[in-house]
């Protein structure tokens, strides 16, 4: 059996009186692809931020490859070899695509090696025609793709993606699906997503969040047909 690469135990996050994440126990195996879904305010992004170190959980623990990382800074979590993409595109606007990806590669490789890896990723993600263009001049879909490039180039063993398909065209989503499936060959991937079409095309196991807690965790087909899930998530009245 594959080892557990990400685990949370009793993860709870409170903002004043609001419990955004409520006692979440979560386990992810190596090279697993997991989608997190749930209605707005279900606590998906809060959970995501607690795992990546952008927020420090009020209670509970986070483990990565057996090591406790609760309360670590984002840069410490990332240094373990975790690739992270936030909800809104977080890129260096005034720098070129090449420079953006090089900066990510440089964190883990020597300058020369970083250039080789950058060129390789630019090829793989078909960014060649815009490699010297500044990020600020690119369309939303391209920016999302570059940000995936920032994640891919570091060769992570755990990838955390928050709404990677948001605001993208169908063609862009297709291309991204391919990239993500390629990632799962070497890494475990967690995707927080709203786009059901996209989830159906990519997911196997899905975790459903509702009011901060895990509602159910099962194969995508069973989740989609489940009555409770349909009620809370797809807005059907009982």
């Amino acid at each position, binding site marked *: 059996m594959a080892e557990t690469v990400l685990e949370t135990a009793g993860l709870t996050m409170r903002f004043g009186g609001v419990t955004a994440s409520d006692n979440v126990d979560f386990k992810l195996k190596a090279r697993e692809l997991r989608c997190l879904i749930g209605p707005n305010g279900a606590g998906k992004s809060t959970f995501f931020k607690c795992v*990546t170190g*952008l927020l420090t959980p009020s209670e509970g623990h986070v483990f990565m490859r057996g090591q406790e990382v609760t309360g670590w*800074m*984002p*840069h410490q979590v*990332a*240094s373990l070899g975790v690739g*992270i993409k*936030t909800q809104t595109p*977080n*890129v*260096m*606007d*005034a*720098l070129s695509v090449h*420079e*953006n990806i*090089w*900066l*990510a590669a*440089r*964190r*883990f490789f020597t*300058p020369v090696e970083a250039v080789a890896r950058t060129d390789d990723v630019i090829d793989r993600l078909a960014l060649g*025609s815009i490699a010297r*263009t500044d990020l600020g*001049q690119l*369309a939303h879909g391209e920016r999302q793709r570059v940000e995936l490039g*920032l994640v891919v180039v*570091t060769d992570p063993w755990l990838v955390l993606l928050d709404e990677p398909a948001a605001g993208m065209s169908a063609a862009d989503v297709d291309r991204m699906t391919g990239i993500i499936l390629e990632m799962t060959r070497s890494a475990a991937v967690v995707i927080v997503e709203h786009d059901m079409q996209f989830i159906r095309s990519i997911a196997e196991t899905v975790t459903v969040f509702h009011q901060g807690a895990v509602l159910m965790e099962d194969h995508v087909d069973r989740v989609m047909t489940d009555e409770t899930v349909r009620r809370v998530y797809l807005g059907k009245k009982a």
Partner: protein
Amino acid sequence: MERSAKRDVVVTLIVSAILIAVMPMLIGTYTLTVLVIYGMLGLSLGLIWGFGGILCFGQAAFFGLGAYVYAIAAVNIGESTLPMILAVLLPGAFAAVLGAVMFYGRLTDVYLGVITLVVTLILFKFINSTAGPQYVIGDARLGGFNGIPGFQTLNVPGDSGAYIWGDAYFYVCAVALVIVFLLVTWLLRSSFGRIAIGIRENETRMALIGYDVAARKTVLFAIGAAIAGLAGALFANWAEIVTPNLFSLGQSAEIIIWCIVGGLGTRLGPIVGAAGLAYLKFLLGQQSMIDNTLIMGLVLVIFVLFLPRGLVPAVGSLWHASVGRTARRRPANRRMRRARHG
């Protein structure tokens, strides 16, 4: 990359050699020296603000600190080599501590401005109130608002009788500026510099990649302060007196104006802005028709309105336009983009 780096160094050396040879024929070396020193001070803020995104309202604090450290050390030691080194190291160390407190405290933007401003004010008030005879460091009396006069000025290392002054001192300062400029160029081309620019663009992303943003900003801040300290020590040698006015808010504000007018995000801009505006101020100081702060304010307003990116970037794009490179590239770009999305 390697070849363009070498070309950069060669061009810098040739242009600065020509300027150092020609400028003394146009402006007296005594005035030129202080313009060069202000250029270095401008570059120190241009480095941390333009490339590191750290807007420091208190760059004058490090400038003044450098000057006072030099003066106090020179009075006590009597030979200028060690005081010069201390004047670079101490402001750098002070900035490293101050920076670590600010950046690990996750202070940004306006809070950073407030703290650096207040630190400058504290130093100004403190030095101003040290007129009494009890305020001495070794043999040096701090002297309050009268400052410290009569310290050993720059000498040939090892020979405290061989003073470097007048024309020779101008050449020393000019060469120092060229060396600092080349070091800054090298720094910005290195991984450290490129990562610093990445942090300026997006701190969150750089942290998510795995860079320790606070540590890197602290180091850059300290480097900027060390350069300002060197400028301060050179200024002390030029003026042959240090006074609390070095720490004044007016001085701090002026450095920021130099950077804006010259062009933020360029290496040359802050130097050009500093030397240009300081010379303008010098010329305006020779007449009494118009108050020169009024003109300085007007210059700033005009630049912010009409050349918001500053003088050097504006001249740069003018150059590109006249050569025709930009004119040809732009429409092609737009066509490509349309083709990709259409």
